[in-house]
């Protein structure tokens, strides 16, 4: 008998994701802000018509969350910080201000604590460091309780178990053992341990021996992974260090379209979604659209020079 690889094509991965999200629409995204976001998987699930999602992430997100809101796929956002860092997220902001989505007021410890509880297999994670912020009055992930050891009032972050998690990493073997080569890995490993269904896009596939020769480089063992998809530049326009840097120009141009839409002119944004999300037949078509080899070489060059 032969072992079954977990390496699948994007269509197979999306069939898994869409089915699971129909069951419970809680989707979690890996990376942080502009690094290692699973954007190709996000575009694919939008192209597949995802709707009504509850979005989770490591505590900071921007472009991809905004894009999903622009594509009208989101009901609620459970992410503490949503920003492009150098500017606000236009569609996030517009959708909250017009009450088309609910953006919960949360903090990092509640989200991370909830994922820790889920990964640890316990009903909650105690938190002792939340005090005095108005965020505590609205936060749906926590409740107060009395510490059984000290008698102090603590917060319990109830287990957060995403139905589906999308991650992006640099490498995997065919069995689904994932290798982040970046310095920062954020909450990707925690999310993989905390989630029901985990789909990972990787820039490249490596031979089995690459994994076995350096097991400590495996950031997420295959056990936690349901499907791996080989998508070169799958994090674009966010970065996948050390392979390529973030495409700030692309994100800024997108944000300009979003701001125009927020002020009433949605044509550019609609066209952007058609050209980049629903239009491209595959990742290569998308890469041609965003500037092709020339643009990608620039981003690789920036990453190589760091």
């Amino acid at each position, binding site marked *: 008998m032969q072992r079954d690889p977990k390496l699948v094509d994007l269509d197979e991965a999306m069939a898994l994701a869409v089915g699971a999200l129909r069951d419970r629409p809680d989707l979690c995204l890996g990376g942080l802000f502009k690094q290692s976001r699973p954007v190709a998987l996000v575009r694919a699930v939008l192209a597949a018509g995802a709707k009504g999602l509850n979005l989770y992430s*490591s505590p900071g997100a921007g472009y991809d969350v905004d894009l999903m809101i622009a594509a009208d796929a989101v009901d609620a956002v459970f992410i503490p*910080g949503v*920003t492009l860092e150098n500017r606000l997220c236009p569609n996030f902001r517009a959708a909250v201000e017009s009450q088309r989505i609910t953006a919960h007021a949360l903090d990092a410890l509640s989200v991370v*604590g909830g994922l820790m509880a889920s990964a640890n297999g316990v009903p909650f994670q105690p938190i002792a*460091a939340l005090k*005095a912020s108005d965020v505590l009055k609205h936060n749906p992930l926590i409740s107060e309780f009395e510490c059984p050891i000290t008698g102090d009032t603590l917060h319990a972050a109830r287990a957060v178990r995403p139905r589906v998690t999308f991650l992006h990493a640099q490498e995997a073997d065919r069995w689904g053992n994932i290798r982040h080569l970046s310095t920062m890995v954020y909450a990707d490993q925690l999310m993989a341990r905390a989630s029901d269904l985990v789909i990972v896009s990787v820039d490249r596939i490596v031979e089995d021996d690459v994994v076995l020769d350096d097991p400590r480089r495996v950031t997420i063992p295959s056990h936690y992974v349901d499907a791996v998809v080989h998508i070169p530049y799958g994090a674009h326009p966010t970065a996948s260090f050390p392979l390529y840097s973030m495409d700030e120009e692309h994100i800024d141009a997108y944000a300009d379209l979003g701001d125009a839409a927020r002020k009433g002119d949605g044509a550019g944004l609609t066209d952007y979604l058609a050209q980049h999300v629903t239009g491209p037949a595959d990742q290569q078509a998308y890469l041609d659209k965003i500037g092709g080899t020339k643009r990608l070489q620039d981003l690789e060059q920036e990453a190589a020079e760091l």
Partner: protein
Amino acid sequence: MSDFSPLEQMTVVMARDLKDRELGAAGAAALVPMAAIALARELHAPNLSIGGEMFFNPYPRRLYPSMLDDRALGRCEGSETFIELFGHSHHGLDFFFHSGLQHDRFGNINLHFVGGTLHEPKMRGPGAANLSYCHTSTRFYICPTVHNDRNFVEKVDFVTIPGHLEGPESKRAAGLMNEGPRFVITPRAVMDFDPDTLEMRLKSVHSGNSVQDVLDHTGFALNVPEGVGQTPPPSEDELGLLRNKIDPTGELRH
């Protein structure tokens, strides 16, 4: 002294207040704070550690607007994850930095919304990830890169980051045991807090600004103690290190 930018002035003010052997982190809007920490390490605090936000002691070749990804952090003395950040958030740091959409008289910070309510806001801001360092850390600095009557207000619409709340009593009642915000450092001036009332007051004014300029650009009646002077400008040494070693691409001058 040569010309210097408001952000360079902010950087040296912060750097001078950081001590050797402290542990601190820069927060999300990290350009100026990270420059300040790097400068302090060069000048008088070689044992100051940067940590608590999933990396230790980075050696970036230049500054970046965001200092939370591999552009700035790829070369460092160790990386962690959000699990370890959870621990640091409880154990606390010596110092941290914050800024927001609104800052009020007591140093409370709002990053969530202006006008309306949380779920029916007039203007929705980004929110914030890290709330706990503001009180688990020994102290923090408020350092917005703009200073006007819309981001300095009498009372924030929403307390994202608690500062001194409504003064000593409310702070005690809420269990905020540490110093909280020590200085407010903006492109115009440095403010501190009256030790008795914990109300913000002017401390010094940066070169090129008058006391009246600062008052005109502050949305509440800022206390001005006797003898408020000019902020000591960057020294040759400070500016040389900043421009040659820490910020060779001039991010603080753009």
